[in-house]
């Protein structure tokens, strides 16, 4: 590797905790980072935004020692350093909180924090020492977690706190947070931000990787915007706006609100009556859920993930068997006595965009065209007597890719090689192609770029305008509010709110999402259908 020594005349070695100068990294022909400069002021919250594939993750991986840059230099506290593995990064005081937590579920908080930094052969003595040190850290930063709690039993917000503690325990002075708010309720986000502010006041620098622009505006001091591997701007947060940032990210003007007419609901296409479902350990996941979705409306299901939304989609799509209650799809009833397989439900005209496309919606190892016929693999148009009709399958995939602008438009490419947005577009294209009467969409834009989000939302709205009933499950309140006509709020397997999107806001949805925990009554606003 080539280490260039770049002396920036304006560089003040004291005030920056991290400086990256002219970082370059390419993977084969793909240039992931091109001449990237980044200066993080000590004790500031510095946000980095950009679309998927803009190079944020690569840059952070270089900083955390997962990759080495092809060229460029890194300065920590003004010293030129070489970071060739994450151990070295930790030594330099860099800590990272990953989007997907790196915790051992059945260990206690204390054991998780000490793991990998035991410091001596005797676990008992290192745990004892760690307990004292952690107590001091908790006091200093106001991070309270029960050290003896088992991680799997902690709510997600607290698990994230454990990750932060883990970094601080290793004396991190620079904390990288990768998409930290993806799984949190608005209230938990507030708590996280309070913690970040305390860290900042104690002189810790925070690097925040995110795609949620409203959070960037709310918490950061500086924002750097990346696009196509390059750093396109670094601005003071107080001097910019969401619209300006979005435009910088995408390179063109972006519509943040979905452009749609007022819904004109017709007859009920999907009706759910007192649906109750217990998992194999007999824990109730759905508790007496009832609602209707009419033709020509988009109904959103809001809630913190894990509150029954997955099970609801599973039951509606036939992936789970109905236990109690019933589902009515255009007058056809599904209940415990009349089960239907996913294939039969699909034939009733129900499309299902899976919540977790990596788990259900696609097969990463399949070519795009194979993913493009999932659920339709037995249709006569794709099969000859014995052999699959590969020609038809390829043509089908090409036409989906054309109408939904999937890039690259290569039916032979492995599904996993597409970016998240393009994978999602392919999955949605597949389900919408047959003009379903009822469309179930789980997390329509999870891991999808802003540009693609706009497009996906438009497609869902246009399906609604053609008279389909759409049920959208999303953990992004902003998405629910701008895309949906009516919002159901789920908490602990129950519907705790049923409101018109135009008559509510994120704050009150957030309150409803956590309301049932204190046993509050169901919130009713607006007209209920």
């Amino acid at each position, binding site marked *: 590797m080539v280490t260039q020594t770049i002396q920036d005349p304006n560089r003040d070695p004291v005030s920056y905790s991290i400086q990256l100068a002219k970082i370059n990294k390419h*993977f*084969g022909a793909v240039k992931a980072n091109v001449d990237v400069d980044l200066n993080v002021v000590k004790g500031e919250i510095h946000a980095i935004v950009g679309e998927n594939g803009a190079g944020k*993750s690569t840059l952070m*991986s270089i900083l955390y020692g*997962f*990759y080495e840059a*092809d060229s460029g230099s890194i300065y920590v506290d003004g010293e030129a350093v070489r970071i060739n593995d994450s151990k070295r990064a930790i030594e330099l005081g860099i800590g990272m909180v990953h989007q997907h937590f790196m915790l051992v579920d059945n260990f206690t908080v204390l054991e998780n924090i000490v793991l990998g930094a035991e410091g001596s052969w005797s676990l008992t003595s290192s745990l004892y020492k760690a307990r004292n040190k952690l107590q001091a850290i908790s006091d200093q930063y106001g991070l309270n977690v029960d050290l003896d709690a088992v991680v799997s039993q902690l709510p997600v917000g607290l698990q994230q706190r454990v990750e932060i503690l883990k970094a601080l325990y290793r004396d991190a002075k620079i904390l990288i947070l990768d998409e930290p708010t993806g799984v949190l309720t608005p209230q938990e986000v507030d708590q996280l931000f309070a913690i970040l502010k305390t860290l900042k006041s104690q002189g810790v620098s925070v690097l925040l990787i995110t795609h949620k622009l409203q959070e960037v505006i709310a918490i950061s001091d500086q924002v750097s915007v990346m696009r196509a591997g390059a750093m396109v701007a670094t601005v003071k947060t107080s001097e910019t706006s969401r619209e300006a940032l979005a435009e910088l990210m995408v390179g063109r003007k972006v519509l943040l609100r979905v452009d749609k007419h007022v819904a004109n609901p017709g007859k009920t296409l999907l009706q759910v009556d007192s649906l109750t479902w217990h998992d194999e350990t007999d824990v109730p996941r759905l508790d007496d859920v009832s609602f209707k979705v009419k033709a020509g409306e988009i109904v959103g299901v809001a809630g913190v993930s894990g509150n029954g939304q997955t099970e609801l989609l599973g039951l509606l*799509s*036939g*992936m789970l068997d109905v236990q109690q209650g019933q589902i009515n799809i255009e007058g056809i009833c599904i209940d415990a006595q009349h089960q239907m*397989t*996913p*294939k039969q439900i*699909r034939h009733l005209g129900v499309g*299902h965009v*899976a919540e977790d496309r990596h*788990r*259900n*919606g*696609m*097969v*990463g*190892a*399949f070519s795009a065209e*194979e993913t493009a016929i*999932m*659920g339709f*693999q*037995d249709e006569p148009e*794709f*099969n000859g007597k*014995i*052999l*699959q009709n*590969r020609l038809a399958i390829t043509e089908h995939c090409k036409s989906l890719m054309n109408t939904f602008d999937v890039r690259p438009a290569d039916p032979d490419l492995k599904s996993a090689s597409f970016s998240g947005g393009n994978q999602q577009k392919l999955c949605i294209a597949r389900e919408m192609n047959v003009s379903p009467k009822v469309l179930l969409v789980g997390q329509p834009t999870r891991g999808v770029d802003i540009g693609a989000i706009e497009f996906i939302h438009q497609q869902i709205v246009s399906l609604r305008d053609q008279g389909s009933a759409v049920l959208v499950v999303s953990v992004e309140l902003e998405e629910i509010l701008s895309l949906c006509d009516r919002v159901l709020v789920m908490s602990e397997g129950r519907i705790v709110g049923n409101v018109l999107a135009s008559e509510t806001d994120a704050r009150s949805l957030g309150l409803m999402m956590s309301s049932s925990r204190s046993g509050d009554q169901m919130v009713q606003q607006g007209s209920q259908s």
Partner: protein
Amino acid sequence: MSRRTKLPAWADIGLIPLINVLLAFLSAGVVVALIGESPLEAVQVLIRGAFGYDEGVGYTLYYTTNFIFTGLAVAVAFHAGLFNIGGEGQAYIGGLGVGLICLALDHLLPWWALLPLAIIAGSLFGAAWAFIPGYLQAYRGSHVVITTIMFNFIASALMVYLLVNVLIQPGSMSPETRAIAPESTLPLMHEIFEFLGIKITQTPLNLSIFVALLACLFVWVLIWKTRWGYAIRMIGFNESAAVYSGINPKRMVVIAMMISGSLAGLVAINEVMGAQERVGLDFVSGAGFTGIAVALMGRNHPLGIIIASLLFGALFQGGAELAFEFSTITRDLVVVIQGLVILFCGALAYMMRGPLERLFAALSRSNQEEG
């Protein structure tokens, strides 16, 4: 987020298995050296024994035939995410099917009329033997690795009982059936060549090697060209995606196991109807297990399986020669090499990937710096 540069396809499919096999042989060479023989000389003997003269080639291909069948069996199950270790037992029971149909009809039908029936019988019996572990895996949650191993023992015990008490030729002391009538056994390769006017030494190599090659074609079409293969691969890659797509994974597990078992059952076409002309004790003699190594090395692709089978066929034949030439080396060395191949191609399959990827990354970097 993958932290590695991707390898070109040819390196991934071709180079890595090649390096792994070479490493296995290198380690085997060390073993030979430890015994006190020259590894170089041993390799010469081995290659000469396997390919040096027509009889050697005949035996090599005869073994290859068995390994293709069992390798395909393991591969089909593998595509469905199942590890079928029961090829040995399924092949043995397949022999029962082939044996029964041949013994029942051998005086009535010539070999070419009997062959399709024998293929059906062998695959049905093999499939039936694989059905039980498949069913238990799908509907009862008993792991197929455990049950198929147990079924190998059950098959062995069952066949001993049948051969000693039921199928034994009256008046014979040896636990095997009577011989199949000569006009109903598969033509041996030297007979076919003789018919074409070429004289070669007699070996057990017979027509079934073509059946094996057809089976390869069948598996290739099945796995990559039909919707059943689509479903099999989908449950192998991602079972919950299969549920989402309306595929019943339980049913597919059973079907995949039965296809796997039927392929293993075809070993009997080579052994019972071709080479031995009767059902004898333990006629599979380990081919079922070798199939695991073959499938691992052949990356579960029919083409790879043909190449790997050829390698193992050569090892078995050359290994016999080795044991004959060197008093200090026994046939067990073949088992050692087989074990090393499984170790390097299976357990350590990704060991060389990291260094290779770094090498390729460095090469492409230096290329770009020049350019």
